[in-house]
């Protein structure tokens, strides 16, 4: 196990370094932060002063080493645009993204898996076909389009829910959450559902194919022959076995939701980190983009690690492997 963890650490180090290199130099190619920050009225000298202030007057490799050196000491740099520490910016906006991602995931799992198992067991029923039809549509229409339709229907025509923003937030553990108030939840509803639609569809398909595969295994037939109740078969034998692929995908999807719900966040003006990333790319706010993507890389590495451990818990073959 220790060996396994060390190897993982080593890999993630290399990943983070590669990521930082690609993003750092990529951002350099895309645009010039000084140009983005300066007014048309700026003189040449103003621009030079600004470049010196931001440390952009030095050769690129030197900028890179300063940046990574600081980062190893826990200093992720200062945003060019907001003029504040990058880590503060990200941490401030993280709760908004976390709560919306988790809500979306909960909706996705709690609707998707039961639907999937149902349509796997009753494969030929009419209901199963209708479910599959809708999940195929949900799976293949673009996320932003669904967002616009949701806004049109629930915000503009029905006026049940607000179209954008975060609404009232309440404080818990010193962090602001929308989850804790009715107004906040109303604001969360549309973006969370928007993120959840894809998850529901995917979980349904995963659970369905898993169910169909497991359903015809010999041990299932044997269990039925033994006279075990239908409910117990589904819970003990079916659910456990279909969970392995679902756990893998869900792990990655949680990461994906946290890291890249950029589209949903910008359409609903949800002030999370996805929107921060997008805005920062537009403004060539290099410290934010690089730090963000490195943190996200590390997060994925961590999630993968957790997924592997979950595997071991769920699947005795992996657990008892020596």
């Amino acid at each position, binding site marked *: 196990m220790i060996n396994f963890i060390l190897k993982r650490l080593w890999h993630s180090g290399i990943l983070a370094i590669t990521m930082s290199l690609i993003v750092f130099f990529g951002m350099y190619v895309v*645009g010039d932060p000084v140009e983005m920050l300066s007014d048309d009225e700026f003189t040449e000298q103003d621009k030079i002063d*600004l470049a010196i202030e931001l440390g952009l007057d030095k050769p690129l490799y030197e900028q890179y080493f300063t940046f990574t050196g600081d980062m190893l000491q826990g200093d992720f740099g200062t945003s060019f645009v907001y003029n504040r520490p990058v880590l503060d910016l990200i941490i401030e906006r993280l709760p908004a993204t976390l709560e919306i991602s988790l809500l979306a995931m909960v909706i996705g799992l709690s609707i998707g898996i039961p639907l999937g198992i149902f349509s796997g067991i009753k494969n030929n029923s009419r209901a199963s076909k209708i479910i599959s039809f809708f999940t195929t549509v949900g799976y293949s229409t673009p996320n932003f389009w669904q967002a616009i339709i949701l806004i049109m229907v629930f915000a503009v025509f029905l006026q049940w829910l607000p179209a954008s923003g975060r609404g009232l937030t309440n404080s818990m553990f010193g962090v602001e959450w929308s989850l804790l108030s009715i107004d906040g939840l109303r604001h969360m509803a549309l973006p969370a559902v928007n993120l959840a639609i894809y998850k529901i569809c995917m979980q349904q398909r995963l659970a369905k194919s898993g169910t169909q595969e497991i359903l015809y295994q010999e041990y299932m037939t044997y269990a039925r022959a033994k006279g075990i109740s239908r409910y117990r078969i589904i819970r003990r034998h079916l659910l456990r076995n279909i969970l392995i692929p679902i756990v893998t995908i869900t792990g990655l999807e949680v990461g994906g939701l946290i890291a890249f719900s950029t589209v949903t966040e910008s359409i609903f003006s949800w002030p999370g980190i996805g929107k921060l990333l997008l805005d920062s790319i537009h403004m060539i706010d290099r410290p934010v983009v690089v730090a963000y993507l490195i943190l996200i890389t590390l997060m994925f590495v961590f999630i993968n690690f957790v997924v592997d451990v979950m595997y071991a818990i769920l699947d005795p073959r992996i657990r008892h492997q020596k």
Partner: protein
Amino acid sequence: MKYINFKTACFVAISASMMGSVSADTLRMAFSVAPSTIDPFKSSASGTASLNEHLYEALVSRTNDKLLATSYGWTDDTTLVVNLREGVKFHNGADFTAQDVVYSSCRMMYRVGGKKNMLTSAMGPVTDVVAIDDYTVAFKTVGLYPILIQKLKSLSILDSGDADLGSTLKFDNTGDCGITRYPTKDEFATGKYANGTGKYKYESFSNTGDAVLVRNDDYWGNPGNWERVEISSVGNSGARMAGLLAGDYDLIENPTGEDLLALEGNSAYSFSTEPSWRTIFLVLDVGSDVAPGVTAADGTNPLKDIRVRQALSLSINRDAIVDKLMGGNATVASQFAPSYQNGADSSMPDLAYDADKARQLLADAGYSDSITINLRMPTNKYQNGKRVGQAIAQYWSRIGIEVNLVAEPWSVFRKGRSARELGVFMYGWGHPQGPAQMISYAFGTRNKPLNLGGSNYSNYSSPDFDAAMTAWAVETDEAKAFEYNQAAMRVAVEDLPGIPLYYQHSIWAHTSDISVSGRPDERTFADMASKN
């Protein structure tokens, strides 16, 4: 059946939204660019500037109304004396005096947390700021600098009581003025020092761009129209419009042309436009031997030939662009700054549209069917920009020029421009400081002391233009300065180092129960709106 349902839904939506927006004396606005700070000296970006203008005031307003100044004048070549308004109070109750002007000037020059303020250039070549008495302040400059009062429009006045002034407050354009403690960046962010003399007072601001303001009942002039102002920031134009239709906002900035069409049939909503100071024009590299992205069969830079430039201008039907593409929400341009701006020559003749003559001019110049132009432009920057770019490309191809339209993100575009890789590009520019400012930067020959030609991407250099511009730069008599400016503008329109297209209009969409009278500087201020 479905159709009826849809109509019913619309009806419900409309009546619900009408009920929603009759609520109290609160105005809810959605900005298109998020304000990034409540520190008035940190950024000139539109969102930040709009928000801060609610809280802070300068000596003179953007439209030349006197705010904290009651009169001003040059007593000698390098001394501007400003008389200040008496009886003005800051939001914290402190009295406004000349000391505050000196302090604010110091704060503008001071590097808070080691960072230069983005608006520092507003102070120009100011060497000293002296409080003569409580309500008189003098600005000293290195040399003649007549536009100083215009520049000072960016100097928001803060309360000197927010800092520890030390024993003697003495302006110093590089140091700290002897002030022992300035409010730090973080202290400022808490809102404790968001303390100006403006019509609205700070209540909250989050750096995601949402702010709440309340009316300043002790304002020296007419108090604000609204008891409470809530500002949200929604970058996506579709989401902004949805928010308006959903009843989340009363007023939104910059709706798209398509959205306006949808609003026209809906009595619950309306929109207001205002001609802005921004001119949309094309910049042509007329000075380089080889202009990037512009090729002619003989290898020269065809843009050096005035006949080619005239042909490029003649081939464009500006009326059609304004009527058809902009839906009338723009004004055809005859020069590089709006003819309706204070100081501009309002009788400048229209620029003609004559494609046959354009073809003839190209033939005379020897460039028939031999020019290729990469027309570069930023995406999502100007209203309908992409479509206007496509129209220009078509007009030019009609006179036998091959055009490649290259639309790029603003960041990529700006980088290319600063590297001078753009031979022909579309740009939009406007100045609150009068029509001369833009051309002095864009078309003047580089002149550091007078700050001319800093953004001369046309590589244009004309003795006549420069003579008029240098005379303008040191002319303290306003009427004469306007004359010089108009003379320079005539040279530029004659020489065409760029091609004026149209003056953009700003648009605000809002509920029908408020009326809006817009501003020409593209900023959004709560008092633009009033209840019907």
